[in-house]
């Protein structure tokens, strides 16, 4: 008995040990399998409203220094060993730089001035800022620059202190804008030895290279054609990437000798299969790193022929930079975030899925980060945009390279893929089925085929005529007056000169030309016609009459200029009432957007009996049926469906009606209140002309009073208006215009279209041309 008990105990102990080990292994496994890839910072929250951007990044030792701008600028230091970020506040420094009274800000002649940070750079283990100084002289805003200060970080505060480096000759960086001077925007920097290289855009739009000698402060400007990117290269040279534009664009990689102003090309690369961006170079191994098509490539010996993909780039936006760390990690950063990526292909996740977007939606990046957080062992490559028709070929070739495609629902390619069923079946994925089943019926229908779920809607947008609700009411127009048919809209436009006379409103925004309005109206009308009357000819007398009406509508008396007149009218913007609010807008988005104004989109019909519509296109993600990683691809699609951008989420889900504030709503209000307080203070002290300040104070008070009412990312009114029009939304399944413009006859059509808008061609000619082509297309069928 006892013996047995001991065995039992032992067994129990063994089991416990086993469990412990299993648990340890489970915990440690991700760490063991870890690629070392890390997210240092994610600045983009995916709703299109960011409060902080990565402005600059420097690496010194094991630390990454981030200069963040946005509503609260600050400095962040990321320790690569501990993975911790320390934030250093910039408020005090900013106040110091802005203080016109401060002695150190004054010019040599003693003028009061403010300082701005124009650029950062790292040199010999320290971080430095280059400052510019703005002051006013004889009523002109002046600027001087090139003051170098060393960064000091302590107690959660950042500061700049004077240092031994000489003042840099900043004269070449200053641009004379007539009655004011400004400093060029520095887009990139690199330090090689004692030379600081800064790039900025010149007047001609070309990127320029400025070289500063950090010992003497001397500068030289170098014109390097098609300069695209640069990074410290071998032997104290600069490694330069040049982008040559042509029908077959190519990249040239050169070693640039800064002393001799000589470039020595070592590789050329046809851009066809994705542009090379963000070059980085590691001298110890003579390896060139670059990003292409969403992946990090390493080219040992700077030999592009032997470049090998080593990791995914992890940042979806195109504007990325890639400094290297000492231990061979690449820091990939763009405005939206900072990532540490391993460049050792052996450490790469076992599976990599590829996403090829042909259409854009806000939510991508959100899903992307969420997925890489939750599925660290799966690499995700977001490829560059490309030619849609390549997708058709890929399907025909049963190409399994890409796992997920993202397309616009109205593209002919989507139509073809959908029609033929070249979309992976997602019905087996309960989460996806569940997510899509909660969306509007129009979204569900667009995403399903033969009762199977085949795609995930990611966005919804369109173009329609709209009116400004407030203006509508102010002009005494009622619900009754809202046009429902094209004839009614044109009728309304005819009565507008009378209605608008002497009011604070104009018919359309100032910058719309007669040609623009006519063209846009006509396009929308014909597009709707094609959707609503798919089986009818364009040459129907009723449509021809309407087309003629649009062509003849009197826009002159509505104060709209022709393209020709606009050239001279622009300078008289105010005198001509350009700042008046427009009653009508010609291309409002019937989908839901943040910053939505008080606009009401107009569902349109051709007759009073017909159901009016608002055409929209949807962004759809679907799985390649030939994908070799269907499970991973579906997991990614789930992630996409879960992380829709805010506006799309609301636009697709009827039950979401809670209005949404800006994330920094409170800060915004507080800064306004602070401003009000300062203004009131200065009014009390009576230093300035009081009447001037009083109006400002009144304005702020007024705005503050309505602040909570009016400051919404998604306001209750915008959501309500969208719910009201949702019943009229019709997802377009073909793009009439890309079909008309999109091939060898496109040229003929655009000439005809322009000719019609100029009155040289008749509506009959235009419509019969369209008829012929569209009819042929329809008759051919799918």
């Amino acid at each position, binding site marked *: 008995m006892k013996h047995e008990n001991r065995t039992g105990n032992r067994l129990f102990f063994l089991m416990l040990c086993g469990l412990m080990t299993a648990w340890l292994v489970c915990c440690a496994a991700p760490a063991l399998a870890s690629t070392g890839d890390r997210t240092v910072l994610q600045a983009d929250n995916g709703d299109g409203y960011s409060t902080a951007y990565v402005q600059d990044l420097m690496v010194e030792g094991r630390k990454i220094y981030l200069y963040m701008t946005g509503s609260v600028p600050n400095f962040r230091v990321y320790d690569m060993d501990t993975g911790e970020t320390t934030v250093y506040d910039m408020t005090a420094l900013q106040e110091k730089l802005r203080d016109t009274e401060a002695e150190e800000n004054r010019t040599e002649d003693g003028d009061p001035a403010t300082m701005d940070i124009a650029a950062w750079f790292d040199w010999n283990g320290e971080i430095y800022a280059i400052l510019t100084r703005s002051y006013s002289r004889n009523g002109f805003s002046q600027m001087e620059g090139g003051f170098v200060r060393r960064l000091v970080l302590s107690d959660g505060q950042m500061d700049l202190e004077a240092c031994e480096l000489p003042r840099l000759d900043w004269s070449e960086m200053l641009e004379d804008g007539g009655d004011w001077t400004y400093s060029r925007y520095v887009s990139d920097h690199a330090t090689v030895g004692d030379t600081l290289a800064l790039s900025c855009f010149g007047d001609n739009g070309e990127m320029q290279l400025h070289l500063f000698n950090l010992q003497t402060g001397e500068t030289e400007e170098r014109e390097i054609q098609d300069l695209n990117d640069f990074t410290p290269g071998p032997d104290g040279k600069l490694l330069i990437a040049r982008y040559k534009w042509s029908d077959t664009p190519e990249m040239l990689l050169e070693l640039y000798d800064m002393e001799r102003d000589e470039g020595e090309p070592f590789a050329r690369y046809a851009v066809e299969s994705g542009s090379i961006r963000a070059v980085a170079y590691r001298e110890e191994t003579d390896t060139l790193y670059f990003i292409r098509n969403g992946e990090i490539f390493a080219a040992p010996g700077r030999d592009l022929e032997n470049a090998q993909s080593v990791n995914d780039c992890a940042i979806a936006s195109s504007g990325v930079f890639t400094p290297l760390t000492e231990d061979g990690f690449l820091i990939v950063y763009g405005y939206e975030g900072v990532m540490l990526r391993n460049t050792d292909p052996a450490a790469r996740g076992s599976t990599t899925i590829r996403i090829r977007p042909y259409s854009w939606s806000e939510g991508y990046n959100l899903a992307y980060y969420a997925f890489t957080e939750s599925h660290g062992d799966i690499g995700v490559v977001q490829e560059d945009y490309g030619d849609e028709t390549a997708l058709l070929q890929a399907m025909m070739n049963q190409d399994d390279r890409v796992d997920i495609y993202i397309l616009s629902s109205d593209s002919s390619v989507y139509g*073809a893929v959908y029609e*033929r*069923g*070249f979309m992976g079946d997602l019905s087996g994925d309960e989460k996806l089925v569940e997510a899509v089943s909660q969306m509007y019926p129009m979204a569900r229908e667009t995403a399903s085929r033969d009762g199977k779920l085949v795609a995930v809607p990611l966005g919804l947008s369109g173009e329609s005529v709209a009116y400004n609700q407030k203006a509508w009411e102010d002009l005494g127009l009622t619900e009754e007056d809202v046009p429902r048919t094209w004839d009614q809209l044109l009728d309304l436009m005819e009565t507008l000169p009378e209605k608008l006379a002497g009011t604070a409103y104009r018919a359309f925004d100032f910058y719309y030309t007669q040609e623009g309005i006519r063209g846009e109206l006509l396009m929308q009308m014909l597009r709707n016609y094609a959707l609503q009357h798919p089986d009818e000819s364009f040459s129907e007398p009723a449509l021809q009459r309407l087309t003629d009406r649009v062509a003849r509508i009197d826009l002159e008396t509505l104060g709209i200029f022709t393209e020709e007149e606009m050239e001279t009218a622009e300078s008289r913007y105010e005198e001509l009432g350009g700042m008046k609010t427009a009653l009508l807008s010609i291309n409002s988005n019937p989908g839901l957007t943040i910053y939505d104004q008080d606009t009401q989109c107009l569902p349109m019909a051709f007759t009073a009996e017909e159901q009016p519509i608002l055409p929209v296109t949807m962004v759809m993600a679907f799985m390649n049926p030939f994908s070799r990683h269907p499970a991973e691809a579906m997991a990614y699609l789930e992630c996409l469906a879960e992380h829709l951008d805010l506006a799309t989420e609301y636009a697709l889900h009827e039950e979401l009606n809670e209005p949404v504030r800006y994330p920094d709503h409170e800060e915004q209000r507080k800064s306004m209140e602070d401003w009000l307080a300062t203004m009131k203070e200065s009014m009390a002290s009576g230093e300035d002309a009081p009447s001037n300040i009083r109006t400002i104070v009144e304005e702020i008070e007024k705005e503050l009073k309505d602040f909570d009412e009016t400051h919404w990312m998604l306001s209750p009114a915008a959501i309500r208006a969208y719910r009201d029009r949702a019943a009229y939304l019709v997802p377009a399944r073909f793009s009439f215009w890309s079909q008309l413009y999109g091939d060898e006859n496109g040229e003929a059509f655009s000439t005809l279209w322009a000719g019609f808008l100029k009155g040289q061609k008749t509506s009959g000619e235009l419509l019969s041309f369209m008829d*012929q082509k569209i009819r*042929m297309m329809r008759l*051919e069928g799918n």
Partner: protein
Amino acid sequence: MYTKKRLALPFLLPGLAGILLFYVVPFFGGVWYSLTDGSFENAFVGFDNYLKVWQNPMFQLGLRNTMELSAICAPSLFLLSFLLSLILNRIRPAGRLFRSTVLLPYLMPSSAVLIIWLLWFDYGGPVNHLITLLGGQRVAWLQGSELRVPVVLLFLWKNLGFCVIIFLAALQAIPASLYEYAELEGASFGRQAFSITLPLIVPSAFLVFILSFVNAFRIFKEVYFIGGAYPEEPLYTLQNYMNNMYGKLNYQNVTTAAYSFAVIVFALFGLLFFLQHRAQRGLN
């Protein structure tokens, strides 16, 4: 003539393997393709595709236009080249230079000279100028069914030479002694042409005829360069249909249309072959 089978193998095998792989297998693969539904699942649907395609008005239009264009192009090419070669054969040494010139366009890339064609046939171009000088009216050559004229002329320009050469070779292969003998017999020129020239060149004529048709079917390249994917109705050929279907990812309709067309072509040629045999036997 070698009769040992084994001897032929080294000559035959590499070529046959390639033909099998790149022509015969795809040919039968295509047959299967045209019998499936063309979706991702690729289910077998029998002759549904054929029924659907044959009922499609654009396929019908394309087929009709292709046939019409070929019916214009091939016979005019045939007659023109026959006539020219007869003339050239009779002025033998003097026609040398011309013989070389007429062949040149056959080797020229037609898209390179297409711009010239478009210039010539412009509403204000030299062709219309010539017409008005001769007392006619300007014609809008690049619109509607008139567009067929430049297309046909481009075809003739390009293919004339090759056909002339084939005819000429056949004519020259006829031994002069036959004519001399006939002349001694007192046969007239017409009689000579009918009972000596014609029977002897029938095989070549047959080939020229077939080649003109084959080339006429391939006229699409030129049409596409002028009119795009959706040209005006008179110029919409079967290749337009197939190309556009390809663009719509509908490979089933592409192959179905292609096979339908191939069947018609083979039937046509089979008929011609039969007629040629009959004719030749009759003439002999």
